[in-house]
């Protein structure tokens, strides 16, 4: 089936027409005001770093294209597993050193080649609490759980974990440790049921919820349907009302569902999951939902959500008029300048196609930025053909300003999934974007743009949590970093984005703060005592520990001289 003839194009055309009649939010020109703070210089280095890989394939792989960043060899640097579509998925071991050039080596996975075929995405998490990150691999066909072993070895654990990977077209995933459970609950989001009559229209597959059994080992034999499914493209367990019990937010692709909408499911311990209804405050919203990002933009303790779509991105904030426990959201994307509805680097007025979304502080100024991967589905004529990824920099007035072109990520690629993480442990977030039919992009963050090159950006803190099993990596914990009057919140989550996730250090930009107090709301709701930490450090906080522990990344073999000259050669302060 060619892209031109495919029904997705017809609906897309309708979407484009709808977009044309919107009251124009900010025009492209108006949106391109200069950011007031630092613009990170993102230098593309994929091939030089050893990453030669593209996500390819026919219609089924128009969606997906994810990556998972995880430390699989114990050096605390994020390694990278990348989906390939019809190409094999690959694992790249991170050989970078502190503050050095990005470098990766492909590492054979030693698995059945068939299992690495038709992979759409992946998320890391330590399912069996053995201290090694496992991988949940989303496929066209049987999903996989790859149990992590030392030294980047993985083994297929579907049988060991009594996990039926199904035969669906899986495009989304999220996980959460429910109260009283020893192992995580796994949610899988499925796309079109291609075998259903009338496919693909109105034939969205049910999603699946796998709750672990009560035994001493992971047992996912029991699974239930999250019905109806509306062609999920991203899902995220999120404690939207800070109740301590995360709900499951699912963003769905309106191309294929009929009568569907965005979804929020109550997933309460030992009770069947149930979708929020209109009578409970959930409002009907239909978008071409592609990716979910969560971030507490205004520091009120309640997360905001960025939902990518075709056309404008939604930025949802809990309505001030909502009653307690009423999930009623208002869209603030327009007033915040975050619609990102069409390309910013050209005169093309056709609407954008957004995929992965992720809040992160890429310039370490203490304000959350929003990255959105963009790319035409395939060759959809009514949507922008050249659709560069967005880097919306958070501003002090609460708005966002586009800086993708200033940062250097405005490339003519078709972005899909992505990972925003610090690959070389220099305190500045790097970016890997999986591109459809093109080599993935790997952007090394070189620091703030200046007339003479780059300069260091703001201070940062990187935090990793641990606690006794279950849930050793504290998925669901809230990291609250207080510096001065500012409180920065991050949640340890598995899910969201577009078919992509990362584990390991959680990054917080601190601006001018030299130190901070960190408090952890552990997944069971218990708050920790405050931990006092110095900025520009990587710290590990273990539950009940008296103090945070500092970790230092590996340095290049000849870093000694530089270190003696410059102090911390690895840190963000030496970005040049």
């Amino acid at each position, binding site marked *: 089936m060619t892209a031109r003839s495919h029904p997705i194009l017809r609906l897309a055309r309708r979407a484009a027409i709808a977009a044309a009649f919107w009251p124009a939010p900010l025009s492209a020109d108006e949106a391109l005001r200069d950011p*007031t*703070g*630092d613009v990170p210089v993102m230098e593309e280095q994929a091939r030089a770093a050893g990453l030669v890989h593209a996500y390819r394939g026919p219609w089924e792989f128009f969606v997906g294209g994810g990556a998972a960043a995880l430390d699989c060899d*114990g*050096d*605390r640097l994020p390694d990278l597993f990348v989906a390939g579509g019809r190409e094999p998925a690959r694992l790249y071991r991170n050989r970078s050193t502190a503050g050095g050039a990005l470098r990766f080596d492909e590492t054979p996975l030693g698995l059945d080649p068939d299992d690495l075929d038709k992979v759409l995405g992946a998320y890391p998490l330590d399912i069996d609490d053995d201290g090694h990150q496992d991988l949940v691999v989303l496929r066209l066909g049987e999903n996989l759980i790859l149990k992590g072993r030392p030294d980047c070895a993985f083994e297929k654990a579907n049988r060991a974990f009594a996990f039926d990977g199904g035969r669906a077209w899986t495009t989304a995933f999220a996980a959460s440790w429910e109260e009283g459970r020893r192992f995580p609950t796994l949610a899988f989001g499925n796309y079109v049921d291609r075998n259903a009559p009338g496919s693909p229209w109105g034939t969205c597959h049910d999603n699946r919820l796998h709750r672990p059994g009560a035994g001493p080992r992971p047992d996912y034999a029991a699974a239930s349907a999250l019905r109806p499914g509306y062609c999920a493209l991203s899902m995220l367990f999120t404690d939207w009302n800070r109740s301590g019990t995360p709900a499951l937010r699912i963003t769905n692709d309106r191309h294929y569902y009929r009568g569907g909408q965005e979804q929020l499911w109550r997933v309460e311990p030992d009770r069947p999951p149930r979708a929020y209804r209109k009578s409970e405050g959930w409002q009907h919203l239909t978008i071409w939902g592609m990716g979910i990002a969560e971030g507490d933009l205004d520091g009120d303790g309640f997360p905001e959500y960025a939902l990518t779509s075709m056309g404008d991105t939604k930025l949802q904030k809990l309505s001030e008029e909502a009653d307690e426990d009423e999930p009623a959201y208002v869209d603030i994307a327009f007033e915040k300048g975050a619609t990102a509805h069409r390309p910013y680097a050209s005169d093309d007025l056709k609407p954008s196609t957004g995929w992965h979304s992720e809040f992160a502080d890429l310039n*370490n*100024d203490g304000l959350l930025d929003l990255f959105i991967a963009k790319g035409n589905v395939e060759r959809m004529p009514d949507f922008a053909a050249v659709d560069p990824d967005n880097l919306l920099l958070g*501003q*002090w*007035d609460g708005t966002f300003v586009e800086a993708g072109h200033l940062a250097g990520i405005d490339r003519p690629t078709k972005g899909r999934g992505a990972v925003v993480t610090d690959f070389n442990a220099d305190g500045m977030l790097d970016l890997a974007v999986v591109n459809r039919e093109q080599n993935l992009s790997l952007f090394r963050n070189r*620091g703030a743009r*200046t*007339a*003479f*090159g780059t*300069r*260091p*950006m*703001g*201070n940062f803190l990187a935090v990793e949590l641990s606690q006794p099993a279950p849930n050793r990596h504290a998925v669901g914990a809230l990291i609250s970093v207080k*510096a*001065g*009057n*500012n409180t920065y919140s991050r949640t340890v989550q598995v899910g969201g984005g577009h078919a992509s996730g990362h584990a390991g250090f959680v990054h917080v930009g*601190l*601006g*001018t*703060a*030299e*130190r901070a107090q960190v408090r952890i709301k552990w997944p069971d709701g218990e708050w920790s005592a405050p931990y*006092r*930490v*110095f*900025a*520009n*450090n990587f710290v*590990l906080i273990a539950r009940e520990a008296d*103090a945070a*522990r*500092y*970790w*230092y*990344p*590996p*340095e290049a073999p000849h*870093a*000694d001289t530089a*270190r*003696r*000259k*410059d*102090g*911390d050669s690895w840190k963000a*302060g*030496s*970005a*040049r």
Partner: protein
Amino acid sequence: MTRGGLTRLVFAALAGLLAARPATGTEPWAERVVTRHVEQASLAGRLERDALARLRAAGAHLFTGRFTALDGVGRPLATQAIIPTKRKRPPETAFSRTSGMDSNACSSCHNQPVTGGAGDFVANVFVSEGFESFDFDSTDPQFSNERGTNHLFGAGLIELLAREITAELKAIRGDALAEARATGAPATRALAAKGIDYGTITAHPDGMLDLTGIEGVDADLTVRPFSQKGVMTSLRQFTVNALNHHHGMQPQERFGTRWTGERDHDGDGHDDEISVGDVSALVAWQAGLPAPVRAVPEEAAWRAAAARGETTFAAIGCETCHKPFLPLASLDFADPGPDDMAGTLRTGDVEKGAIYDLALLEWTKRLPRNDKGEIMVPLFGDLKRHRIADRQVAVLGNELLAQRFVERNVFMTAELWGVGSTDPYGHRNDLPSLDVVIRAHGGDARAARDNYLALGETERSALIAFLKTLVIEPARVTP
């Protein structure tokens, strides 16, 4: 030199040579101090003697000038906090003796015995973090820590020593980490630099660091030599803090657009009140202030007593912390410096930083050197924090608030150079004689203090005679 003479000299030096950009209102009678901003772009590489002198003169002008409304004095919509922090409404009065702003000029407090010196009790400042409780109208210690004004003579050498120690400590850390990673076994190293013992660290093969053994220094191994508590990294950082806190003059490098999104963060109608170059001038002036000296008393009896007192000073254990000398390898004062963090200009923030060669200053030629050619800085300190109060001797444990993670009873060893010129004493500036402050030493200094008390009256007097020779010598105080 009188303040008037200093000011005339400064204006003469400023008259032409510094690359500068004018501020508005440049009439000779304009009520303002900042008539021309110093251009940071003109400060790159090693400054020649004249350029350094001009820069320092500009710094002296800013240090002594009493900032006015036209300069932008005041911070109606910003607090004294080190991290730029807005306030919702202006205070009732612009000046507040407690929470600030509390002076118009640096020299309003730093003036004993001359500009750049210490302050009397009346010049005490009230240290609070300036975040939630930024307004307080009480000197009650539950709201703030009351601190005396330290002198700045020799401050450039102090910062250079701290930088060299910091680099050594971080190199030790790096070596330990490298060894642990290479051998696969934990590596423990003594954190010792310039003869100062900062405890131990243990690196683990996975890059984790055990910091439970460190002493007297922050966990990031950065020696912060300034403030009574030893929590400020550099003259530059302190200058930026103080300009906002005490004068409401907001330096662009922290309170400007880059970190606040605003050019007038304090809402007083003045944009970019203090330029990056202005701060550099202030730093250069302070860094070049002469080191205090050892006076030679005219009276033979005092000379003899001082000699005995110096021996006693060592014998009873004062030198354990008040080390008479620390060796310094280089007099190159890089500005910006290597250890500052975002919000204070950093090495990487400029294309090429400046070097203020302190060797160009006459007073540095009189500093002793050791057989390695290192400058022996006669600071009588150890750039290390210690516990200074205990249950029995608690006078110096009078604060209730920890500051920047440093516990209430822990302070940086006070450098004793200049102590003969800067009474009263103690971090609250409320101990009226050397004898009183020595008796107030508890905690880690308890043994030395007890030894002092066990001395006969003559020996105690001799020790005081010695300390009184450590003076800021007005005759050598030149800009």
